[in-house]
């Protein structure tokens, strides 16, 4: 597994506020996320753990400050540019997987290839490999409604890893899982970090915090 070492993720003087809200989050946060490490973002409810992930994922724009990839500011670029960064350099894992209920598991895994420009035929083999590695290879042709929550989350991790992005953002990935499934998901994210990726997990789960390399408390 390879990752671009220059694609380090960092925030500088970051402050965010939702529209029509006077409450500002992050208070000018400056932080560089370490490639090859699992960073847990934690804090009390309402402090913006998930919001920080969406700002890092370029789906929300900061009120002040900047998001940098490889030292280059990207949060102020056009929608097309930010989308391209999301498609090629970021992998997202949501709290409840968010798979397409009308398509097969395999279709869900290869979906990012549509937006990254990778050839579907090329990524199909990789999708099968990832599903096998995550223990859900036999479910490739099933619909999301036919698999368990833990399996769905592993499928979501396979989807996040498909185009080999240097950064994985996971929003409460174990929030809906039992202990065993949570451990399996965390192992998968750990392996992703071990292969050089930057893994950022928003969580308040002590189990996740205990297995993180770094903790960013908001």
């Amino acid at each position, binding site marked *: 597994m390879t990752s671009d070492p220059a694609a380090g993720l960092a925030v500088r003087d970051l402050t965010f506020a939702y529209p029509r809200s006077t409450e500002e989050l992050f208070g000018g946060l400056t932080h560089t996320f370490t490639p090859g490490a699992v960073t847990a973002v934690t804090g009390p409810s309402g402090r913006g753990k*998930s*919001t920080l992930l*969406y700002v890092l*994922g370029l*789906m*929300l724009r900061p009120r002040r400050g900047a998001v940098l990839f490889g030292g280059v500011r990207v949060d102020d670029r056009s*929608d*097309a540019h930010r*989308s*391209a960064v*999301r*498609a*090629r350099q*970021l992998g*997202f894992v*949501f*709290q*409840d997987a*968010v798979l*397409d209920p*009308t*398509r097969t598991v395999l279709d869900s895994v290869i*979906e*990012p290839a*549509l*937006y*990254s*420009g990778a050839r*579907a035929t090329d990524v199909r083999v990789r999708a099968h490999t990832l599903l096998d590695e995550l223990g859900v290879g036999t479910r490739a042709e099933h619909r999301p409604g036919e698999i368990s929550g833990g399996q769905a989350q592993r499928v979501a991790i396979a*989807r996040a890893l498909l185009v080999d992005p240097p950064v994985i953002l996971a*929003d*409460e990935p174990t*929030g809906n899982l039992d202990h065993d499934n949570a451990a399996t998901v965390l192992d998968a994210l750990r392996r992703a970090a071990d292969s050089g990726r930057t893994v950022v997990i928003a969580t308040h789960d002590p189990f996740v915090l205990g297995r993180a390399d770094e903790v960013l408390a908001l």
Partner: protein
Amino acid sequence: MKVGVLVREAVRSATASRVPTTLVAVLVAAMCLTTVLTVGRAAAAQQQVQHRLEEAGSRLLEVADVRGHGFLTSSVIDQAGGLSTVERAVGLAVPRDVTNAAVAGGHPVPAWGVIGDLTDAVELVSGRWPGPGEGLVAAGAQDRLGLDVPVGAVVTPHGADGWAVVGSYRARAPFTQLNAGLVVVTGSDTPAHTLEVVTTDAAMADLTQAAVVSLLARSDPADLSIVSPTTLADLQGAVVGDLARYNRTLLLAVMAAGAVLVGVVAAADVLVRRRDLGRRRALGAPRWAITVLVVVRATCGGVLGALVASALGLVLTSRVGQAPPLEFVAGTAILGVMAAAVSSVLPAIVAARQDPVRVLRTP
């Protein structure tokens, strides 16, 4: 991101999301079918009316020499036939009764002296074209004259004039009255009683009438009697115009109503699939890709509905003998698909501008 890949994905997504695709297909099918069954039939009727109004009888201008001044000479008839707005022109003498020369007291039939080119008035069925002093007999008149074959001779009641019959004919439209008797070739110095002018187009009647009247150069208008298709041409224009206006209005109304309904379905689809679209945005789909996705998805339903409706509409209208032209059906199908695509643009733009975070976050 490649547009071709995106379109393929949209088609797959439309296939996977059967309910909204079927709804759009049903709406577009209803829209196209209604159009074909109403506007299409009206268009077929319009075509029939126009065809009837353009028949030769509707393009006939008749000028009669009511005082017998003899100004409808073969030269005048040739000049009238040479006008650019005239398809053909012949002169007809006043018909005279003739009987079979071989049967005393036979049944009389009318014989028209034709001045000008005989081929403009009749088609030769058998025998040969007649020369001066000869004529042709129509099939019906042949029986009444007691001729076994279209060969023989006819004479006027007191034997003053006579013509040899050298063949049979069928009258060309609009001169079907000639099927009741014979046509005979008169001398070139014999003037006609009426000048029969068939114009190239009913709309040219006015212009042709003016040209023919100017050609005759009569100082006293009472010398002439004119029966013109000018009024008919005006009527044709009015009827066809009214039908076309009605068709356009109906077509626009049906398409507009259909497009609004498709827009509503597309908007509902966008609302229901907010999470799907939000996921796509999070995975890297830019706004324009979401717009294309929603529009192509609606268009897929539109194509399906338009194809089904076109086939069904053609079958139904064919059964009642009022099938609209194929171009009309194809045009309706294309309009239906375009209406589906255009009406989904606004919901697509709204979908592309939705905040993905709002639908992806789990409280």
